């Protein structure tokens, strides 16, 4: 059942949700919009289509302690990091980013289950946010994401004056039940909503990347794609930074390190990037000794290895953040198109 709320009432909605659980939503700070904990002071920003960083670090933080060893006067104590216990709500997750969570679920919830991630998934309720004005870097449809009907525990649509709210899951329903400020919708509302969705989908048709297809990419393509001479040309502008990786809603590689606290160590994990020269560095050196190999790894993983192991699911969701953020103008679209062009020759 779809419910509604006038746009002016949003602050009340946030306050009401915050009563129930910690609320994370897009917040503008120092000119950039990222997901952050809400309080009455925060500057909520629902106008920016994509947060600079995807919401993945609410479930898989960029850095999290695993356990702490404390050594004082000859006594050693080891304390494991507690799992998430507080309920939280993430408001404003776009369809692409939501698909990103599905990808992460495949990795962290399959055996062996990552207990830190699982605890956060269990305690987190996702309010998906339908897109109204997709932008030039978007290509979610290539991966079958419908930005006008994103799903999630709850889906919300925001029109000029109204927020529409629909619970999709028991978790979403439970949250909805605890909020009393949502109103009922009528037929006019339903029609307006449908029109909004249609308009958004029409824009998707007109996007520059509307005709991006994944022909030739899947688990079967391993050998040929790996050996292609195209990589040697494609990687050249790459600076080996991690902007694409850290912006990506699906990249899930991490490194485990120890931090010397002075009285012991804190073992923590943090995001890693396959673009970094010390990625998977071992005592003997590195598996991949050139940037070309590292660059190839990233795209082979997203477009070949991952689908091969996950029933054809690509680990790219078409959010377009890498398109926007790569300092050298590289991105997954260029890779897909380069191979497409090669195939046509």
């Amino acid at each position, binding site marked *: 059942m779809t419910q509604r709320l006038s746009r002016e009432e949003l602050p009340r909605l946030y306050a009401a949700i915050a009563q129930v659980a910690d609320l994370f939503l897009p917040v503008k700070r120092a000119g950039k919009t990222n997901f952050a904990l809400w309080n009455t002071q925060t500057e909520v920003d629902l106008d920016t289509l994509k947060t600079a960083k995807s919401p993945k670090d609410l479930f898989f933080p960029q850095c999290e302690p695993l356990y702490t060893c*404390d050594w004082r006067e000859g006594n050693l104590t080891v304390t494991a990091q507690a799992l998430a216990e507080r309920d939280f709500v993430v408001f404003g997750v776009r369809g692409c980013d939501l698909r990103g969570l599905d990808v992460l679920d495949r990795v962290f919830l399959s055996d062996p289950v990552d207990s830190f991630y699982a605890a956060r998934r269990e305690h987190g309720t996702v309010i998906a946010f339908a897109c109204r004005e997709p932008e030039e870097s978007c290509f979610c449809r290539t991966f079958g994401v419908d930005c006008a009907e994103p799903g999630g525990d709850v889906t919300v649509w925001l029109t000029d004056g109204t927020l529409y709210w629909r619970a999709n899951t028991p978790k979403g329903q439970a949250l909805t039940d605890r909020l009393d400020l949502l109103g009922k919708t009528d037929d006019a509302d339903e029609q307006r909503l449908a029109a909004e969705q249609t308009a958004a989908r029409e824009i998707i048709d007109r996007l520059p990347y509307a005709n991006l297809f994944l022909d030739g990419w899947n688990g079967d393509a391993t050998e040929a794609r790996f050996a292609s001479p195209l990589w040697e040309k494609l990687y050249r502008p790459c600076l080996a930074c991690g902007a694409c990786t850290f912006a990506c809603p699906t990249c899930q590689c991490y490194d485990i390190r120890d*931090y010397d*606290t*002075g*009285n012991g160590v*804190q073992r923590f994990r943090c995001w890693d990037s396959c673009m970094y020269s010390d990625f998977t560095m071992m005592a003997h050196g590195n598996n991949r000794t050139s940037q070309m190999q590292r660059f190839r790894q990233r795209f082979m993983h997203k477009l070949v290895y991952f689908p091969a192991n996950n029933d054809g699911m690509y680990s790219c969701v078409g959010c377009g953040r890498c398109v926007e953020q790569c300092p050298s103008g590289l991105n997954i679209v260029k890779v897909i198109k380069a191979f497409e062009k090669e195939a046509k020759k």
Partner: protein
Amino acid sequence: MSIDDRDFRPVIAAFCCNWCSYAGADLAGSSRMKYPAEVKIIRVPCSCRVNPMFILRTFEKGADGVILCGCHPGDCHYSTGNYYTRRRMASLISLMEFVGLERGRVRVEWVSAAEGAKFAETMNEFVEHIRALGKNTRLEDLRCKN
């Protein structure tokens, strides 16, 4: 001043060059001049050995003040070391203030081997200054705070 302030015992690291300031500190000691126990001295061959990295590390690990002491310019045991120190630290101190570190948490002083009294005086003053500034909260790593 609240009770907390009076109890505040800052952690202070003093990098001292072996030839002048460390010897100056020795002289302060053999002359039985008093200065606060908060000051802990790290011996380096020359003030120019002190990397900005060390200074930030000191704050990271919970220090409230860092003082770097070397020979007077012109008297460096290695001829020119402290001239470089002087330039590097002028820039570093300014940059750290620029990003919002309180004025005077990092300090450079020239103390010769004969200036035991100046060493003690400098340390007394510096500790007083840091006590007045209070705990370093703008440049600390909370992981070291347990």
